């Protein structure tokens, strides 16, 4: 290898490494301080699992975690059902109808979240709906469902349409044909749509803020308020969320690494 390409390689590795280090620095800091006795970043007072214990004992923390994950789960299930059924229906609609529904469905995707949130909140007031768990769910469904449609649609286009016709010819009812023939072919799209919906809902702050019932806190709303107008009390809870984040992150990293390594192994065995 000549000197020039070696230097090139080092430069490339250095650049990638540098970006990754900056990317992981805040996360690392948060992870280290989740093991701190106190809850102030800047001085490490001693190793302790206080914040991890609070994750399982502090009812306030547990409540918020429960709220966040239950909401994400419900919103994702409802969005996936609505989006999948809607996408199948749209796929068989006439061209113009399909274009109209698809266009409207794109609005929440490209729109600024704050505009979606404000428009929904004003509409709820106008039609006399008080903010409740129902309005919150609707808000999350509005941002999640279009993404489910977007991930199911390509699978529908790839689908072999003659199979559905064959099922009908062999005496299946249209409903049965959709359940037994269409659905299995688009299931990867449905699953990725569901996952996307879960992450969108978990991450959401703005829509939650405008559609939630009074007193309802998710991790996002709490952390936002604690950061912008925090006090000593909120710092304790924040530290617990750092602990939660550390756990989730480690689990995901392990999951990705293991699934990748086992994938490599399998491929090697296949050969």
């Amino acid at each position, binding site marked *: 290898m000549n000197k020039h390409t070696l230097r090139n390689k080092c430069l490339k590795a250095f650049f990638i490494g540098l970006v990754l280090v900056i990317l992981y620095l805040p996360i690392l800091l948060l992870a280290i301080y989740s093991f701190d006795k106190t809850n102030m970043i800047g001085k490490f007072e001693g190793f302790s699992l206080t914040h991890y214990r609070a994750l399982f004992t502090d009812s306030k923390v547990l409540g918020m975690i429960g709220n966040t994950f239950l909401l994400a789960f419900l919103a994702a299930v409802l969005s996936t059902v609505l989006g999948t059924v809607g996408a199948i229906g749209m796929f068989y609609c006439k061209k113009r109808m399909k274009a109209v529904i698809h266009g409207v469905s794109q609005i929440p995707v490209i729109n600024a979240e704050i505009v979606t949130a404000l428009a929904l909140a004003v509409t709820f007031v106008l039609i006399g709906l008080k903010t409740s768990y129902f309005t919150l769910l609707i808000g999350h*469904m509005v941002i999640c469902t279009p993404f489910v449609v977007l991930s199911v649609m390509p699978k529908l286009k790839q689908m072999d349409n003659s199979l559905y016709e064959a099922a009908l010819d062999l005496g299946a*009812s249209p409903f049965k044909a959709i359940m037994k023939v269409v659905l299995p072919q688009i299931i990867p799209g449905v699953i990725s749509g569901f996952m996307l919906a879960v992450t969108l809902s978990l991450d959401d702050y703005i829509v939650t803020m405008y559609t939630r019932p009074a007193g309802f806190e998710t991790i*996002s709303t709490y952390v936002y308020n604690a950061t912008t107008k925090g006090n000593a009390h909120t710092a304790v809870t924040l530290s617990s969320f750092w602990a939660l984040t550390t756990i989730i992150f480690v689990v995901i990293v392990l999951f990705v690494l293991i699934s990748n390594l086992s994938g490599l192994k399998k491929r090697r065995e296949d050969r």
Partner: protein
Amino acid sequence: MKLPRFSRKTLCIPYAVFLVFFVVLPMLVIFFYAFTDENLHPSFGAFIKFFSDPTKLSTIVYSLVIALITTILCLLIAYPVAYILARSKMKKKFIILMLFVLPMWINFVLRVNAIRELFNLLASLKGMGWLASANYFKTVFGMVYDFLPFMILPLYTTMLKIDNSLYEASADLGASAATTFFRVTVPLSMPGIMSGVTMVFLPSMTNYVVSDMLGNAKVTIIGKFISDYFGNDWHMGSMIALVLLVVVFLSTWLSGGFKSEENVRGTSL
């Protein structure tokens, strides 16, 4: 009597109804409030007030500037990353790509919180005190940090599709590395650049979570503006939302125009 035949098309009805009530209706409501006064009479009051108020217009302009800087920085960082990874012959480059995407699994607000804590720590070091009041720097850093994966992923996928023989052909025909880069790599990765740019530009103009948490409430971008007005003046809030809506749709339409042109060129090859 037979029941009406089940048709596959009817499956789209629930979603269509949902969209009418919770997407179309809210947009109409925004439009309605933007062009009415307190007594709900038709009025251009908010419209005139908006376009004659220099502070409102300057907020928009400077949101655009912040978004532009964020987008350019994201592109400058993401392009080399995607290029190096896409052209690398490493077997496990997928894992490195995953490393860039993994932080997205951390709650967005918590991630911004972590950046804030990092800056607080850095600002307490000797000679780094300037960081405490560098609100714009911190806001732009936070936005680049958060939206970088949205730029890397589309770039990587389009660059992966570029046929390696094109690079070889370019080199064989005597092009220098720089010429190859600007006349082969950049034009062929244009669709990725466009979708990355839209995915970064729009949120960095409107997502006020970052600017609020990192900018010490000193950086007001257009998204924050709308939420401030929501408390006291729905008509003005709706008017700003409507302006933003127009900006967003215009920029999407423009970038969409680029994309379809790209596709036409791709099929004609």
